[in-house]
């Protein structure tokens, strides 16, 4: 029985640990924070007010992963309104959980859009289904050297063909498009397009007119029920983390919180273990890092152990966080649509989002940002409420000024923006704490504040994630593996990368023997 160290106790780290422990390994998870959960951690931002600033929606739990590690977490998909845009005169444009209900709700704005909705939802679901089949397996390799890999590639081709002619063409045609072009083909209501597009641009530095954003929309839909175009797996972050931690302990994983890793020790091109911040050496035959690729490879590993071209490739991974999170304490709720189970999006049109994105190009924060408000999250004292604002675009790299000077300004601007669309909101605010991209980097260890461990753009997915040629979790140092969402299949799901990383560790051992 050999020793495996997993760095980072987020969902991917825990899933990898469980996967390995079940295959009879002694697994230790080292987590720098005082509790596991990584991005899903709750913070008490003001006395009595707690919120998970970044766990808007935890994404889907791939059934293969759930089965593989032996957990089940109840999904409670939203029943009512999944997302809504506030419009003039207290009216709302709402997306509902089901395609039929959404179509009915859209009819008051445009009967054309209402008629189109079910077909659109079906189309997106079909393409997402194809992506799902790619996400459950190691990234495809084009230079398939073995027969087995060539068969994988052939299988991929068959899956694509199995979609049927029209769907197959739609996959190939849609994925490189901008979400603006895609939506122009379907809908006419500006707020509807704004609301759908806001999903596509989430966590990206680009606006809806930028190529590749249609892929981003579809990626976000993978694993969700048909018709649920805008996020909402219905999994509760706290329940997911608790289930993973419990399962990890059950299968014998040792979790050490408050333990920061300073270095990954390498000898003769092979990992020997890790050195922690307090100077302790922990030996291990394999090290699995669920941190982002930059931190894992360029901060924890001595560069002398890596090829210069590989180092350059890792340096070229684009992170570019653009989101500030504002946790808000409220003394009550503003007027909201009945049955709101999801988010309020300040996305009156695609043009609004595109304009908001312009600022990033010049290293500034949007004057009129895209803001997504999540009510009823976290916990608050009796009679009080918590809301979390996702504020985009606020680039990590500012051309002028610094985040310590700008943080509060951005928070105020975000609250004012919400108030302009949702009158009465600002009056309810009794306190707020903002986490800029720089703060998120510090608090959660995300390079440049990127929640996705690297932009989810076409050139950074599948066999390109984290870098070309190294997309199957094993890194160029023997015994070193990556398991974070900076690796295939990436963010937006629970444990997808961690599970494949665990499989990669086991496969590498088999090969060694």
């Amino acid at each position, binding site marked *: 029985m050999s020793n495996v160290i997993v760095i980072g106790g987020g969902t991917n780290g825990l899933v990898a640990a469980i996967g390995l422990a079940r295959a009879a390994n002694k697994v230790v998870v080292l987590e720098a924070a005082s509790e596991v959960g990584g991005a899903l951690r709750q913070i008490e931002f003001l006395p009595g007010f707690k919120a998970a600033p970044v766990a808007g929606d935890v994404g889907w739990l791939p059934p293969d992963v759930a089965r593989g590690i032996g957990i089940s977490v109840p999904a409670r998909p939203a029943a009512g309104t999944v997302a809504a845009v506030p419009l003039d005169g207290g009216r709302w444009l709402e997306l509902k959980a089901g395609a039929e209900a959404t179509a009915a709700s859209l009819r008051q704005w445009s009967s054309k859009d209402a008629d189109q909705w079910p077909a659109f939802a079906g189309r997106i679901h079909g393409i997402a289904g194809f992506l799902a089949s790619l996400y459950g397996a190691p990234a495809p390799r084009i*230079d398939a050297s073995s027969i087995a890999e060539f068969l994988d590639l052939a299988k991929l081709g068959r899956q694509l*063909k199995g979609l049927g002619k029209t769907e197959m*063409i739609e996959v190939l045609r849609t994925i490189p498009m901008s979400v603006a072009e895609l939506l122009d*083909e379907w809908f006419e209501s500006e707020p509807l397009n704004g609301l759908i597009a806001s999903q596509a641009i989430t966590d990206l530095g680009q606006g809806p007119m930028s190529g590749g954003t249609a892929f981003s929309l579809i990626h976000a839909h993978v694993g969700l029920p048909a018709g649920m175009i805008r996020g909402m797996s219905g999994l509760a972050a706290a329940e997911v983390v608790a289930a993973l931690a419990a399962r990890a302990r059950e299968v014998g994983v040792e979790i050490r919180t408050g333990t920061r890793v300073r270095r990954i020790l390498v000898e003769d091109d092979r990992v020997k273990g890790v050195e922690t911040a307090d100077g302790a050496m922990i030996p291990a035959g394999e090290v699995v890092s669920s941190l982002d690729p930059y931190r894992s490879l360029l901060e924890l590993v001595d560069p002398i152990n890596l090829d210069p071209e590989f180092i350059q490739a890792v340096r070229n991974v684009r992170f570019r966080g653009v989101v500030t999170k504002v946790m808000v304490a409220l003394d009550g709720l503003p007027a909201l649509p009945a049955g709101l189970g999801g988010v309020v999006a300040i996305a009156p049109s695609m043009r609004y989002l595109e304009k908001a994105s312009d600022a990033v190009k010049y290293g500034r924060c949007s004057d009129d940002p895209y803001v997504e408000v999540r009510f009823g999250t976290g916990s608050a004292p009796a009679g009080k409420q918590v809301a979390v604002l996702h504020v985009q675009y606020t680039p990590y790299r500012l051309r002028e000024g610094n985040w310590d000077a700008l943080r509060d300004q951005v928070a105020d601007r975000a609250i004012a923006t919400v108030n302009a669309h949702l009158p009465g909101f600002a009056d309810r605010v009794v306190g707020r704490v903002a986490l800029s991209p720089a703060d998120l980097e510090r608090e959660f260890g995300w390079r440049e504040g990127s929640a996705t461990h690297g932009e989810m753009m076409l050139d950074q997915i599948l066999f390109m994630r984290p870098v070309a040629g190294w997309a199957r979790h094993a890194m160029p140092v023997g015994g070193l593996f990556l398991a974070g969402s900076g690796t295939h299949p990436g963010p937006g799901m629970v444990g997808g990368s961690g599970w494949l990383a665990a499989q990669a560790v086991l496969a590498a051992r088999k090969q060694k023997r």
Partner: protein
Amino acid sequence: MATNSYDAIVIGGGHNGLVTAAYLARAGKKTLVLERRHLLGGAAVSEEIFPGFTFSVFSYVVSLLRPEIVRDLELPRHGLQILPLESTVTPLPNGDYLAGWGDSDLTRREVSRHSLRDADAMVEFGRLMHHMAMAVRPILGMIPPDPTSLAPSDLAGMLKLGGHMRSLGSENFHALYKLMTMSAADYLDEWYEFDALKATKSASGIIGTFLSPRSPGSAYVLLHHYMGEIDGAFRAWGFAKGGTGSISNAIGNAARALGATIRTEAPVAKVLTRGGRATGVVLDSGEEIMAPLVVSGLDPRRTFLELVDPRQLPDDLVTAVRRFKFRGSSGKVNLALSELPNFTCLPGVGPLHRGAVSISPSMDYLERAYDDAKYGEFSKRPYMDIVFPSMLDPDMAPPGKHVMSVFVQYAPYHLNGGWTDAKREAFGDAVVDTIAEHAPNLKSAILHRQVLTPLDIERVTGLSEGNIFAGELALQQLFFLRPAAAWAKYRTPIHGYYQCGAGTHPGGGIMGASGRLAALKILADQ
């Protein structure tokens, strides 16, 4: 009636239509070309717009013309002469300049004035681009297989394509994949640090598209423009003696020499069909001309929605053509000059005037130009690519005088409020004012000015929405999706009716590849 029937009719005497006609004639087909205007060339025409001043009115440089076409049709014998454009000079905001010269050692020395790192990177970058161009070249010469089809020829095509990809090796494949999916800005950021260098290079990635250099998909167009091939040398751009119209005329002469008939001022109204077969065409004049083969060199919108009744076509195809994006984004300003502009960054008449001048001082500059356009305005301070054809070919202007060609981006076809004469002039003023900041004598040197908006380009050349590539070169509109899935192999659902314009694979630029591949396909089908 005997004189009024042919084996094949080609609609449109643009360079692709002429290439198709020449190849068909070469194979012994009695071929007729019908051109709407009084001269040949479509967007590749030379016209004496002002007395004594001849302009390549639209398309103005050449690099992509396929060498096999030059060889097969013996174009030099028919008057084709390419003069190399040897440099690109970018004036900088601080009064300095950045130059790329014909000589690579000189260029390296020049770039090292601005960044030693970039001067080093250039060598490696050039090598990679060469590999990428070599990797793409066989694809440009390939009839796109239909990936949804199980027909033996399509499966063989897919296998050949797959084999080609695998033969690249994983390193080149990954590099190609990056080039296909990244933005020009991000791609160049991985190589270079000097802002004006990145801006000038990425500018070639946005030409003819409605993308920002920061939008994924723009890096590919960069390669498209890198693929220039004069006498086998990659990267060189050239200028045709007599203007781009002389390329069209050379191809036209070759076609005639091979037996084709060419009629100008013969606009086609409709393609005639009977029982799902093409039987000929009818002209605007009502004249009917019969042929069992009809080939459209027009863009997909005109080919499928105007020349034939769309009700004859499958709904899928009609939908796809309606969704095909044109979105013209560029304009052209042609100036007749009493003297050459004197650029303050490199004063006097010099090598700068024998090459291109690129107004692309920074990435921000290009982004701001795009910001104007995406909200429906022309760029107040646009990206421009400027050449002085009379410096290479003195016959283009009266002695001592000059012609200046300015390619301008962005100018959206769908301008807020629509294009008017006043807006056209305001656009022309923006162009002249911006150049005058770098060459103060320009305004007083202008004798005549022709301003072409995308709407003008559409009106004169017939290119829908003024798109210079007959449809955007976006990833979702390339290869087996150009112009539409299942109809990328030059055929149409109407038997005997084919397409050969730049709206088919590979399209764009004075390349002629679409015209040649279409002819090969037609002949193979016979």
